[in-house]
């Protein structure tokens, strides 16, 4: 924090305080008006200034005309989880003026279109209103209603650049990259950005005391969404067959896979595809295709969300029991039923762990961010073939569709797929005895498999009906139970080979925060905030099910484990109670399931119900309950 003795006429922090590279703002627009590219431009410009930044798109399940928001948080310490403390709101949608203005933190700013006066009842005396006549400026300078709407968005980017001290050269450079082939559009964008920028500089004291400044925090980082990263993982893992049915928020995973396949997987000579991507008639068919392709020896996957996974459940049981490698990406959204399709949740944890009827239990891996989406996608295919079973990669809408700053993706060219125990034609030819599909020859619960079309001695009939260790149909008690028990051992045996939990311990900590998936950022921010208050807590993030052997001792070592997750029923907590020896009393749930990404304040508020957190050293004065705590640094 740098000192600045100037008293700002724009409101903001108390005199003398300037806050640099620690801010969040929210842009409220109407969906279908092209604001996404303007907002992306802002987020990318901040990233290129070297500041860790995230962009969260809170969008409706609608094509045009409903409210949509984009939240940008920049934080030098790398805390880029969602925050509910907005220093500024860019209010571009009259339909949401009221709630948008209410969400600005005390001392913050509201940037609005002053072409028309704001209704009187929206006034707040603890925030500063910054009016820019955006509509008027675009009407005066551009023709055509669509262009005017688009340029209005670019105009507010210009104004924000001036107010927050965003490097205009970077903004112009990004525009140039985007519109390299469209000179006319580029000129229009240049003009719009300058209109906004110049207006702000002429009418306000720029920059605001809450502002940005170049730093070097992103040298080895990229900004990417989890679905894109997972799709890249599928390409690098050598997946050749994808079958899917469109469903938000997983659709962009297959979209990205399609794009990358066209880029990387065309036969250079014939131009033909070294992949097959099948848009199925429903999720049942998508699952069937993946299982058929996995059975035939391809690395195959589907991408879906909870509702789709419900439809796939019967097939999941088949793949589990018939032991067919297959990979399922579950990008979770808010359930039950249709729920809120464009909002995020972690409501599928328990369902995925035991999906399908009968005794089923699955290997599930939980990435926390796009970087892990890439790594875990590759891992999933190896696990699927090693353990001959469906593997679930469970992310969520926030991870899958939002922009995250993560370390660059890395690839080691020495990687080769783990195809597991697949007998070759030569091995089958040389074999002296007959091949038995479900015979546990090695004692690790994993039998060898064969692929169709390879060798007559490898033939067997795959079936979801009762079968014995030789692959024959059975309705007899012992041979049936023998196979089912062995499959169970196989899955349990995978636990030590799955991603270990991420554990961070601190001196003197007696309690722990335990979490999963995309809650990581919010929980780590809470760990830091607690430390600032003199409260030490340990941290563990579950990354796989069945639980890694490190999980149980960690839980046992803490008086209380606060399990932070995004669902109503504390699903991870219940799974921990069911599947580890942890005492029920040692687990307490901290839950948020309203559909937005988890924030640090959810964790802190939840903890406050159990332990005395003391005073927030950062809070200057108590904020109203409706507005998140926080405020400005002294």
């Amino acid at each position: 924090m740098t000192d600045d003795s100037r008293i700002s006429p724009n409101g903001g922090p108390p005199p003398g305080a300037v806050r640099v590279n620690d801010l969040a703002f929210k842009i409220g627009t109407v969906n279908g008006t092209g604001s996404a590219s303007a907002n992306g431009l802002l987020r990318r410009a901040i990233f290129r200034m070297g500041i860790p930044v995230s962009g969260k798109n809170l969008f409706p399940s609608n094509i045009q005309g409903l409210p949509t928001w984009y939240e940008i948080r920049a934080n030098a310490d790398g805390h880029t989880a969602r925050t509910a403390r907005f220093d500024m709101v860019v209010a571009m949608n009259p339909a949401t003026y009221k709630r948008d203005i209410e969400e600005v933190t005390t001392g913050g700013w509201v940037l609005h279109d002053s072409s028309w006066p704001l209704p009187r009842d929206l006034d707040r005396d603890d925030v500063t209103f910054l009016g820019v006549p955006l509509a008027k400026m675009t009407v005066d300078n551009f023709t055509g209603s669509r262009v005017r709407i688009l340029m209005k968005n670019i105009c507010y980017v210009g104004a924000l650049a001036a107010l927050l001290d965003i490097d205009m050269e970077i903004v112009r450079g990004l525009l140039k990259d985007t519109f390299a082939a469209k000179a006319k559009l580029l000129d229009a964008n240049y003009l719009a950005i300058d209109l906004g920028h110049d207006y702000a500089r002429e009418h306000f004291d720029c920059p605001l005391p809450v502002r940005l400044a170049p730093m070097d925090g992103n040298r080895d980082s990229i900004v990417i969404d989890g679905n894109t990263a997972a799709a890249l993982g599928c390409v690098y893992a050598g997946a050749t067959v994808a079958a899917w049915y469109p469903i938000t928020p997983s659709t962009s995973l297959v979209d990205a896979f399609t794009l990358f396949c066209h880029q990387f997987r065309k036969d250079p000579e014939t131009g033909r595809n070294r992949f097959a991507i099948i848009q199925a008639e429903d999720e049942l068919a998508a699952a069937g295709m993946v299982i058929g392709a996995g059975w035939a020896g391809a690395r195959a996957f589907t991408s879906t969300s909870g509702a789709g996974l419900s439809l796939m459940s019967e097939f999941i049981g088949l793949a589990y029991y018939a032991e067919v490698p297959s990979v399922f990406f579950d990008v979770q959204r808010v359930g039950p039923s249709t729920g809120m399709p464009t909002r995020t949740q972690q409501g599928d944890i328990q369902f995925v762990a035991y999906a399908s009827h009968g005794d089923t239990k699955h290997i599930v891996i939980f990435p926390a961010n796009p970087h892990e989406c890439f790594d875990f996608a590759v891992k999933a295919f190896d696990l699927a073939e090693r353990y001959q079973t469906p593997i679930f990669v469970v992310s969520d809408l926030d991870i899958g569709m939002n922009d995250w700053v993560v370390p660059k993706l890395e690839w080691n060219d020495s990687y080769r797929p783990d195809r597991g125990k697949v007998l070759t034609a030569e091995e089958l030819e040389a074999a002296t005895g007959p091949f038995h599909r479900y015979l546990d020859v090695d004692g690790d619960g994993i039998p060898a498999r064969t692929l169709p079309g390879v060798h007559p001695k490898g033939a067997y009939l795959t079936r979801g009906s009762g079968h014995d260790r030789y692959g024959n149909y059975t309705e007899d008690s012992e041979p049936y139970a023998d196979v089912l028990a062995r499959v169970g051992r196989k899955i349990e045996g995978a636990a030590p080979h799955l991603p270990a939990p991420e554990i961070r311990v601190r001196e003197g900590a007696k309690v722990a925060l335990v979490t999963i998936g995309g809650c990581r950022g919010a929980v780590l921010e809470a760990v830091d905030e607690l430390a600032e208050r003199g409260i030490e807590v340990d941290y563990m993030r579950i990354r796989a099910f069945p639980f890694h052997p490190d999980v149980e001792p960690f839980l046992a070592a803490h008086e209380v484990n606060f399990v932070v997750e995004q669902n109503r029923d504390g699903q991870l907590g219940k799974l921990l109670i069911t599947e580890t020896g942890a005492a029920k009393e040692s687990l307490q749930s901290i839950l948020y399931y309203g559909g937005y990404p988890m924030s640090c304040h959810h964790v802190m508020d939840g903890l406050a119900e159990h332990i005395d957190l003391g005073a927030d050293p950062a809070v200057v004065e108590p904020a109203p309950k409706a507005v998140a705590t926080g405020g400005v640094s002294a």
Partner: protein
Amino acid sequence: MSYIKKPRVHHPGLTKNRLGLTRRDYEGTMSTLCAGCGHDSITAAIIEAFWELEIEPHRVAKTSGIGCSGKTPTYFLQEAHGFNGVHGRMPSITTGAHAANRDLMCIGVSGDGDSLSIGMGQFAHVVRRNVDMLYIIENNGVYGLTKGQFSASADVGSTAKRGQVNREHPIDSVLLALNLGAGFVARSFSGDKEQLVPILKAGLRHRGFALIDIISPCVTFNDHHGSTKSYQYTRDNYNQLVYADFVPPAHEIQASYEAGDVRTVGLHDGSSIRFRKVPGDYDPTDRDAVYGYIRERQRAGEVATGLLYVEEAGEVGEESDFHGIQGTVEEPLVDYPYEELCPGAERLERLQERFR
């Protein structure tokens, strides 16, 4: 007689095909279906067709759903991989397997319940996708394993074993497949092996989706008076509309269009179908006319059988089947070396400039 294990050693004098395999080599395990079940006759015809076509059994992928029909892949081609999946979902499993390995010869065996009730969606879409497979519906109008409920192919007015009358309209897989654009549509009868074997052979050689709906009476639950899927009813109302022979590529024959009653239709692999006898001006390559003719015969109370419709190889592009639509490489995807599938570290590094 399902408790009898088939002998592994065969008589040395059995006739061998050019691969040196006897018909016994194309068999599977002993059937557990009811004695006299139409499905077993179909299994026998399938065995004959594969033997005559001289196909290596392990090149074949056999798939099925659930029900009596679902059990049948166990009874033929012991040396082929098989997949007995879930009810009504054989098409998607087959599609996936075919996507992964286009060199597999796919044969799917389904039933009227499996394809026309629970699996109606997948049936329709596998036709649309033109997956290169032979799709058999063993059609008996009834659910056998659950003891005699009507299926969606039961005719209006047909009666169940205990006398209930079906009043719901049937779904006709042949008309449906014609509507959905199938390139090869046939109807046959399990009791007519002479007709069935050549159609099976042609269906296996047809590139793209081939449907054979085979009336296959259920001796236990649907072979009584009042049933329209009984042996008696089918024999009484059977109209062998189209007589066709399958002619493999090596046996070139002369097309004879001028004779009027003989027509030859070429298949993609160079083999052909020779229509020996068709009624009047029946044109087995005219989809609309075939549709109309079948409807007309149905109104007359007849079951029209034979290879009813086939598209000529030249009529549709080479690229109209599943892999043509997909634009997939000629080699099976499963045979692609990993090194040619992974773009490598350097390209990942370059790609990520886009994300900065």
